[in-house]
């Protein structure tokens, strides 16, 4: 069941061409530093496209450009086949945006939903229907008569997301929508988005939480310092590591730096050792050999192993590696 409305069900990835198309987008706020530095990508209809990046990486600037809040300094951007500079309003009528910051009218929760629906021209009866459905779906029934500003952080976030579903849209931009939500509400939100995606909604989603990206996104882009480091499907990105495994290792008292340095030398090109204090993440094609080297070296150097696990690669590994090594996720050390 669609949360919001009875919008037409559109086939997923129907081959009708990209709904977002960006080519060499650059944007600067101060004419010295580029918040976006040559970003190119496309998003297909019905796709969930994730933007992963650190704080200040350029995610929100990109969202602002795609939602017509800012005009990129250079490059070509088309949303739903339209040019944001010349037809911003035509684009905005067909998109929904949940911004990162709080945004409420100074009224109750249900008042916020009602007014927002009215602003989008939703008829009164339909508005009431959607409002009730959304209040229930997002667990806001008990606080419907409280002022939105008086709610907890998580409740406020739920109101913001629920409010956006008061109207129909073709693309939904979610700028870190799950910040402050508990596990249950986070999953409710992600499932709600998934439901809408099945009905043809395209979603652009920024997050810090890589599990969420793994759960929701068809493709992700890792962005850092205004540049895309990687753009691919989640599965492909994980596959970039081939049969590689990740070893998480923590050593006890002793010279951890010297130990990890020596280990890196012993493993050579067959593994990547990324130390961080007394711990290190080791990516390797041959975990058996790596484990044997770790055991051997710890005995030789008298370093105690406190924690050691071997696991499959996650999207987080891909992300960390690409950001640290400037997009060379599959590269050697």
């Amino acid at each position, binding site marked *: 069941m669609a949360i919001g409305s009875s919008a037409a069900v559109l086939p997923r990835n129907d081959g009708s061409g990209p709904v977002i198309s960006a080519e060499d987008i650059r944007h600067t706020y101060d004419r010295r530093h580029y918040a976006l530095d040559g970003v190119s990508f496309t998003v297909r209809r019905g796709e969930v496209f994730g933007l992963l990046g650190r704080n200040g990486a350029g995610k929100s600037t990109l969202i602002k450009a795609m*939602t*017509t*809040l800012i005009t990129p300094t250079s490059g070509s951007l088309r949303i739903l086949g339209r040019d944001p500079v010349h037809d*911003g*309003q035509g684009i*905005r*009528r067909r*998109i929904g*945006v949940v*911004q990162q*910051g*709080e*945004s*409420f*009218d*100074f*009224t109750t929760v249900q*008042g916020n939903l009602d*007014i927002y629906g*009215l*602003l*989008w*021209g939703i008829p009164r009866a339909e508005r009431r229907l959607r409002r009730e459905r959304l209040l229930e779906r997002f667990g806001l029934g008990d606080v419907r008569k409280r002022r939105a*500003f008086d709610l907890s952080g998580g409740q406020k976030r739920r109101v913001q997301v629920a409010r956006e579903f008061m109207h129909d849209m073709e693309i939904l931009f979610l700028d870190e929508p799950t910040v402050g939500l508990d596990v249950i509400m986070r999953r409710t939100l992600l499932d709600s988005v998934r439901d809408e995606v099945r009905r043809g909604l395209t979603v652009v989603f920024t997050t810090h939480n890589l599990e969420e990206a793994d759960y929701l996104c068809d493709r992700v882009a890792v962005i850092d310092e205004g540049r895309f480091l990687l753009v691919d499907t989640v599965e492909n990105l994980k596959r970039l590591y081939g049969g590689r495994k990740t070893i998480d290792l923590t050593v006890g008292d002793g010279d951890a730096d010297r130990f990890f340095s020596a280990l890196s030398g012993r493993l050579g090109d067959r593994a990547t050792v990324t130390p961080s204090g007394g711990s290190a993440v080791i990516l390797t094609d041959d975990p058996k050999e790596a484990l044997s080297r770790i055991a051997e070296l710890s005995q030789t150097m008298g370093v105690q192993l406190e924690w050691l696990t071997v696991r499959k690669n996650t999207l987080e590994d891909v992300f960390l590696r690409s950001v640290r090594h400037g997009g060379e996720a599959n590269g050697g050390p």
Partner: protein
Amino acid sequence: MRRTAVPNILRLIYRNVVVNTDPGSLIILIGLPAMYLVFFGYGFQSLAAAGGSSSVYLSYLAPGIMAFQVVMAGTVGGSMLWADRRWGMLSQLLVGPFTRLQYLLGIMLTSMLFGLGGASVMLAVAYVLIGTGPTQLLAFAVMYASITVGSIFFGALMLFISALVKSNTAYNSIQILLIFIVNFASTVFYPLSHRLPLALRILFEVNPLTYVANAVRGAYSGSLSAWDVYEMLILCAETAVILFLAVRSYMRSDVSFE
């Protein structure tokens, strides 16, 4: 203007009215001028009577307080823009189906509506207190036209200021200072006297609220002069200039709260 622009602006006006009509705002908007009318009206009327004046001060003050509504309406407009920036709704609305200009017009027209509504309430209060008032259609037309232009002027002025100012404290301080100066350096409460110091007299004479107060008073008392009409023409020209400046500064301003 496109077909959808009018409904968009009407929706924005509705939203502005609903969001800004909490009891606190209404008390300030309507209650404060009404209190001026009652306390100043009766208080200074006693003083005038003690001095042997036969004039009825309440009849003088009532149209002045109606004119004063344009300043109150202007502050409501500025506060709406400021609050929308402060609470994140400006950027949220601007990623919605509206243009910046529609949003701005929505605020301007809401201010105007508050100005006209407030002036009507003051007119009704004046009827009750004085027992009489204007009856001619032309008088009403002139009063409401003056209040409309005055509301647009002060609405645009406050929007101009709120688009430029970066802090809430600064905005509130400017607003309070401006209300005080505009209000008391005008003919809202007392006529312009030639015994005033020159600088103060100039301030009275260039104050747009003086033009509105004179026009409303002229229509209210049936003594509208050519000079009042001339002043209103000046006000129209000033309104066009300040409106242009407000639109320009707002269109260039950062929509996010800083």
